[in-house]
Structures are given as structure tokens and as C-alpha cells.
């Protein structure tokens, strides 16, 4: 989870490192801690540390973590030679390690030799059938080949054993959304909200899925979840505010002609609109007119 403070800190560090202000190691540690994907930068600055013997030796045992981080970043950037060199260094240092074995499997993946990678993972699983990361890699392997049904099958098998792994639930939800299987995705997001009820982004994603599903009940539920996302973010999430506007206009369209007794909180939309207008005036004053016309078109259709 990346909070607002951490995000600003990361951006500050990134700017500092890019302008040659030093602090590359702190930046790499921070990237690792927040689990953000900045492979190109990790590769560039990580290699500059690794290629400097003085800096490298000052890291102590952290050096090997850096080798692993750089190896994965290099695979992500398709710099396979660098990845190979890093893995060789690690292999020399830790000859029997499973973690290095996993890196070798990933290198095979990056090369595109799927069957060999699968073989490598299966042999690693034989030694330790409950290795979570290897199971996840097999899912990624199926995903990389575009074989989504197999990926879903693997994830489901994995989730039967490790039900509390919310990252995997999220991955499953994202796969379902990419396949337009919204009902299943909604189930995954429900599971995520149950596990971590204070994360506004899950509420937001669930509301998005419900809105996409459509239907009066789903739209009303979506509106509620957008509202809870707004509550949890203090109204600083623009997407949730727009979601409220869209939901209200869609609900109004569906209930047009029917008796409007059960119209709940009619001022919710006007509140959301006011918040949006204020936010746009503050941060993008040249887009206020665009926002106004977009909101007007929503109201006209209702």
C-alpha cells in the first residue's frame, strides 16, 4: 500500500536521484519497500552501484538483495545479459539456493522458453510443494502465454490453500475484469473488501465493476461503494466523485417515468459536483469549462 506521504517522498527521491543528487541506494530501498515497478530506473541506478566496487562493498550483506532486484529489473527491461550476469554472481555465492533457482526460471521466462521455465518451476515445487512465489510464477507463466483459463485455474488452486493472500485475490479480480467476467470479479473484490475494509481503492474497484454490470440494484450498490470510497479518502478521489455523478444519472434514467418516492439523498450528486468543481478550479483551472459541459450532459440525460 502506497500512502500519499510515501508517494510524495518517492517522487522527491526520484527527482533527486535523476538530477544527480545522490541517494540512489535509499531510492532503491524505497522502491523495494513500496513494491512499485520502476524497472528502468532500478536497472540504471542499481547497476551504477553494483559497478562501483567501493559503493558495493559498503552495502554489506544487502549487496545480494540488490543483485536480485537488479536482475529482476533487467529481465523486465529485456536486458537479458545483465540479468544473466547478476544471476551468475548470485549462483556463485549461493549455489544451492531456491531463490536463485527461481530467478533462473524467471530468466527462462524472459527469454520466452516457456516449457523449460515450466520444467524449472516444477522441479522447484517438487522440493517444496508449498512455495507461494513459485505457484505465483506459474500463474504468471500461463498469463504470459495468453492462456488465461489456465492462469485462472492455477490461481483458484492456489487460493484454496492460501485464502488470506489478498494480492492474489486482486490479481484474480484483474484477470476476470480483463476477460469481462464481471460477476466473478465482483466476488473477488468483495473478498478483498472483507479482508481489508479500510482500503478505498478496493471499494472504488468494486463500485466500478458493479457500475459496469448495470441494473438498478447494482447501480445503487455501486453508488454506495463510491460513497464509501469518498468517505475513506475525504473526497480527494476524483474517480469516486465522477462515479457518483454517473451512477445518479444512470439510476435516474432507469427509474424515469416511475414514481420517484424512493429517491434517496437527492443532493448527493450536487455535493459531488460541487466537490469536483472546487477540485478542478484548484488543480486544473483551464479544464473547468470541459468539466461543466460533461456534467451538464449527464444532467440532461437524466
Amino acid at each position, binding site marked *: 500500500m502506497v500512502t500519499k506521504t510515501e*508517494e510524495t517522498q518517492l517522487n522527491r527521491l526520484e527527482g533527486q536521484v535523476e538530477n544527480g543528487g545522490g541517494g540512489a541506494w535509499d531510492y532503491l530501498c524505497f522502491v523495494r519497500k513500496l*513494491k512499485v515497478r520502476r524497472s528502468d530506473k532500478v536497472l540504471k541506478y542499481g547497476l551504477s552501484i*553494483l559497478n562501483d566496487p567501493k559503493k558495493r562493498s559498503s552495502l554489506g550483506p544487502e549487496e545480494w538483495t540488490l543483485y536480485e532486484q537488479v536482475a529482476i529489473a533487467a529481465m523486465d527491461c*529485456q536486458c537479458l545479459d545483465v540479468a544473466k550476469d547478476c544471476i551468475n554472481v548470485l549462483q556463485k555465492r549461493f549455489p544451492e539456493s531456491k531463490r536463485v533457482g527461481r530467478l533462473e526460471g524467471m530468466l527462462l*521466462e524472459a527469454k*520466452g522458453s516457456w516449457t523449460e521455465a515450466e520444467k524449472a518451476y516444477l522441479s522447484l515445487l517438487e522440493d517444496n510443494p508449498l512455495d507461494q512465489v513459485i505457484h505465483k510464477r506459474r500463474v*504468471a507463466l500461463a498469463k504470459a502465454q495468453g492462456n488465461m483459463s489456465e492462469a485462472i485455474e492455477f490461481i483458484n488452486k492456489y487460493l484454496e490453500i492460501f485464502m488470506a493472500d489478498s494480492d492474489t485475490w486482486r490479481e484474480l479480480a484483474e484477470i476476470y475484469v480483463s476477460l469481462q467476467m464481471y460477476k466473478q470479479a465482483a466476488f473477488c473484490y468483495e473478498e478483498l473488501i472483507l479482508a481489508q475494509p479500510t482500503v*478505498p481503492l478496493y471499494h472504488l474497484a468494486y463500485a466500478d465493476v458493479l457500475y459496469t454490470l448495470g441494473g438498478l440494484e447494482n447501480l445503487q450498490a455501486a453508488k454506495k461503494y463510491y460513497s464509501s470510497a469518498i468517505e475513506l479518502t*475525504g473526497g*480527494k478521489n476524483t474517480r469516486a466523485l465522477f462515479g457518483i455523478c454517473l451512477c445518479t444519472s444512470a439510476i435516474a434514467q432507469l427509474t424515469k417515468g416511475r414514481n420517484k418516492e424512493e429517491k434517496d439523498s437527492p443532493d448527493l450528486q450536487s455535493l459531488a459536483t460541487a466537490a469536483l468543481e472546487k477540485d478542478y478550479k484548484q488543480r486544473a483551472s483551464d479544464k473547468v469549462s470541459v468539466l461543466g459541459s460533461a456534467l451538464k450532459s449527464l444532467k440532461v440525460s437524466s
Partner: protein
Amino acid sequence: MGLGFAIGAFGVLILAHAAYSTIQYRGLLKIMEEEFSGPPMNVVVELLVGLVLCMWAALTVPGKFLSIHPHSDENRIVSLPANMDFMVFNHRGKVFPSAMDLKLKH
């Protein structure tokens, strides 16, 4: 930190002194064979001063208060971590090989 700790220690000393004075006062009452109706004024003042000092030290010395509001900047989650365990390498970056000719040299 040092100042707050010293003030806290001083507050505890004052409280201890108040306790000691009360015991002494009770002893005095026993000798004079009078009823105990309430602690003397100086003990009450000492207790209040000690309470304030100890409370102030307890609130400042251990550290800063963290926000519990879900929408404060420290707690508001703006992005979820990239699912690195499910990282896939055959993405469009493959088509645009990075111009960097980086090498690990040893």
C-alpha cells in the same frame, strides 16, 4: 526529549514527596489524637502540579502522535503495490529495447 524526561522525573518526585507528606501528616494527627478530615493544602497543590507535569511528560516524551483519520496524507492509500510476484515479461517493452548499453562489469 531530555527536557521532557527531566520534567517527568521531577513530576514523579513531587508525587512521591506528596505521598511522604501525607504519611507524615497522618502520623502527626495520631500523636495529636485528631480526626483525619482531608489532606492539607500543600499536599493537594503538590498532587495537582505533579499530575500536570507527569501528564505533559507522558504526552511528549514517547513520540509524536500519528493521525488516525483514514483520509489524512499518512493514511490515505493512493495506489496499490504493483503485483511483482505476478510480473510478466513479454509486454510491449520487449518491442522497444532500451537504448542503454548497460553491462555488469567485475
